[in-house]
């Protein structure tokens, strides 16, 4: 597991993603909440944070969380997502060979929170790192969902003078949060 994690981290960081790893869900949650506060998430346009429903949230008191962090909402609409600084979602798999994250994205809120805000925080269970594309396609298959997304680093372009520039239409920051503790996933 450590070797695949290391390979994933190497690849993901090479495409400008941030990679963090926590042993427990509570440690990961604390990191995320602190990050939201430090980044200035607030209850005003362009400062919101939107969190798409996911297994990580199971059993947590969402109302309480939203009350503690003004501007954080679990009710994802396109208007809210477009006015958010941060979007949070859980991804189903990680692919070590390219540092990519993989998700069944048929529910639209998963795509809204990971594309419209400036920053995307992506939660993944550490045990769900797979080595490569064939391994991923043995787990996610188009026969079972109408929209599968692979996300590899933040949005980027090199269209002006071939200079790599991060953050075009999607997020300019991708923060990947691995959680070792199992049971927080579907």
């Amino acid at each position, binding site marked *: 597991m450590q070797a695949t994690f290391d390979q994933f981290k190497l690849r993901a960081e090479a495409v400008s993603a941030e990679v963090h790893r926590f042993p427990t869900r509570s440690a990961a949650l604390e990191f995320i909440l602190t990050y939201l506060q430090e980044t200035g998430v607030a209850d005003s346009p362009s400062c919101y944070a939107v969190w798409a429903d996911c297994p990580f949230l199971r059993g947590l008191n969402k109302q309480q969380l939203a009350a503690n962090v003004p501007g954080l909402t679990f009710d994802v609409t396109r208007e809210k997502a477009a006015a958010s600084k941060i979007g949070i979602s859980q991804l189903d798999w990680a692919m070590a060979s390219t540092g990519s994250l993989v998700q069944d994205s048929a529910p639209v809120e998963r795509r809204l929170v990971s594309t419209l805000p400036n920053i995307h925080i992506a939660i993944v269970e550490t045990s769900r790192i797979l080595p490569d594309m064939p391994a991923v396609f043995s787990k996610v298959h188009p026969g079972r969902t*109408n929209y599968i997304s*692979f996300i590899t680093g933040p*949005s980027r372009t090199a269209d*002006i003078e071939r200079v790599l520039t991060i953050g075009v239409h999607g997020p300019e920051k991708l923060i990947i949060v691995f959680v070792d503790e199992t049971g927080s996933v579907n």
Partner: protein
Amino acid sequence: MRKEFRESINTALQNPNLTGALGRFSEAYRVSRAKAYEGVDFEAVRTQIAERKGYAASHLDELTDRFTENMESRGAKVFRTDDPAKVREYILDLARKNDVKTIVKSKSMASEEIHLNPFLEKAGIEVRETDLGEWIVQLAGQRPSHMVMPAIHLTKEEVAGIFSDKVEEGQPPDIKKLVTFARGKLRGKFLAAEMGITGANIAVAETGTLVIVTNEGNARLVSTLPKIHVAIVGIEKLVAEFADVVPILTALPRSATAQLLTSYLSIISGPVPNTDGTPKQLHIILMDNRRTEMSHDPKFKQALQCVRCASCLNVCPVFRLVGGHVFGKIYTGGIGTILTAWFDALKASDEIQSLCIQCGNCTEMCPGKIDIPGLILELRRRIAVEKGQTIAQKAIFSVVNNRRLFHSMLRTASLAQKPLKKDGFIRHLPFFLSDMTEFRSLPAIADVPLRDHFTKIEQPECKEKAAFYSGCLIDFAYPEMGESVIKILNKAGIKVTFPEGQTCCGAPARFSGAYEVAAKNAEDNINALLTEDVQYVVSACPTCTVALKHDFIANFESLGKTESLPHARQLAAKVYDFSSLVKKLVEEGRLTFKQGKELGKVTYHDSCHLKRTLRASEPPRELLTKAGYEISEMYEADMCCGMGGSYSLKLPEISAPILERKLTNIKDTGAATVAMDCPGCVMQIRGGLDKNGAKIKVEHTAQLLAEELE
């Protein structure tokens, strides 16, 4: 060649932003592409792609039906048509029915192929490209100059100017700020648009699936925010099974942008819910536009294996000088020339096909294993058949095809040039020929051609015999190269003969599309070379070697001259290029190098045909090293020198800057000598160095080895 076309070439060549950006990119591309492929067996991957896409190209109808059935079973609409007009009408009709006022698009070559944007705009619908490069080009009212990097010809200052003029005044030439500006401006369009149009990189029949790759995230927004998603897909994007996407997704990002994977990959297999909970309207337009017809053409079917990575543009020595605009059409570069001939019209490729110098770089890099230069030659042939040869071409070939006339003309030329000759170079030629020496000196025609001098060369009696095929350049300009070959083979116990009936190898005719002429050359040569009982047929010109070994056969095959094939094959089996034969003789212990020689630094230039058709880049290096030379590799050693046979006469304005790069790379090694195996390259490079006064020796490998063997 029309004046307008020549002018567009010159305009491109004189645009330092374009040539600078493309030049730097092509250099960086090779390095980063190689890095992206580390740990990946490119040959295995592209063999898989060629096989899977080749299969799809022979089963287009069946795959279309399966794709349609699968997609429609989940609620999408699939519309297949051969007619670009019907694609446009379908989209307009759909837009009108749904009261669409704004459309956002992510990159789709297929939509550009059918000129969709102007059609919809004329109907009063706002169409916004959202890929940054495409948006810039759209605002500027231009055409993309590169398939993957549409705005590579523009500087940040020009982009800032375009944004300031067309969108909002006062934009600074700061790339990060320009990107942020574009994000802000286009965000509103994404949110407001009622329809989104994308292309697709792959369409899977087995599962009814579209695969779309982007880096900016625009395809993700285009397929998420508007309530209608239309995907325009060329039917060559179909593959049979979902597993087929793996090799394509392994190669496409690596070859296109040297990435392991693009930032976003969307795999769409049916309608998904909209943000208001309604199901999305998903329409897939499978566009044929002559692709089926192409799949029935035995030669051009392979062009459907293209994954649109544009690596053939990135490694092309000509494209990096002229860029995409000279192609005048949507698809550019090598593959673009071929696609234009089909999607537009054969005659639309008449001029642009002449840009190909036939160096073969693109084929080496193509993830679809498409023989791009071979197909361009085939276009040339078909165009030549359709419109016939020009009078000048006819005159040349009637001479080339008449051995006696050809040779006596060359002899006459040797006398006529006398007053012009100095140090073995022609510096000034009269009349129209003067253009030919503008950027390089031409060799003087030898006083006595090799064929006339041959009988006077003393040779020992040997058990084995080799027939020497000289080719025009060695025969008439560089007989000394031939003499070196004879000397070396004699040392191995091989007597060399010079079959008198040999004539032009046919390459000039073939490269002009005049296959009948080339076939006549082939027949004459086969007769001449097979009459003598020899063990080897050797040539010191790689282009001639390729003709003898491969092209005679290919020519007969394409002309259906099956009766000539057995003799062509019999000849091919005996044919060797100089270095490969000498390497074999050294390995057999029949040739030994003098011991302990330190001959100094040489740099080696790979000739296109030797490296990429004959696959013999190592033998000359190995032989030179064994002789005692130290090889100092030049940058881009295997990049074309710009000769390309008659190419350098037809397009000297392109040949010259290609040569210029080569000369710089040679000089940068600091070597006193540059070696190569091709007399054509010697002519180009020696002439170039002479013209610019550099004192670097340019030698055929045979000449460097002749004195170094026991």
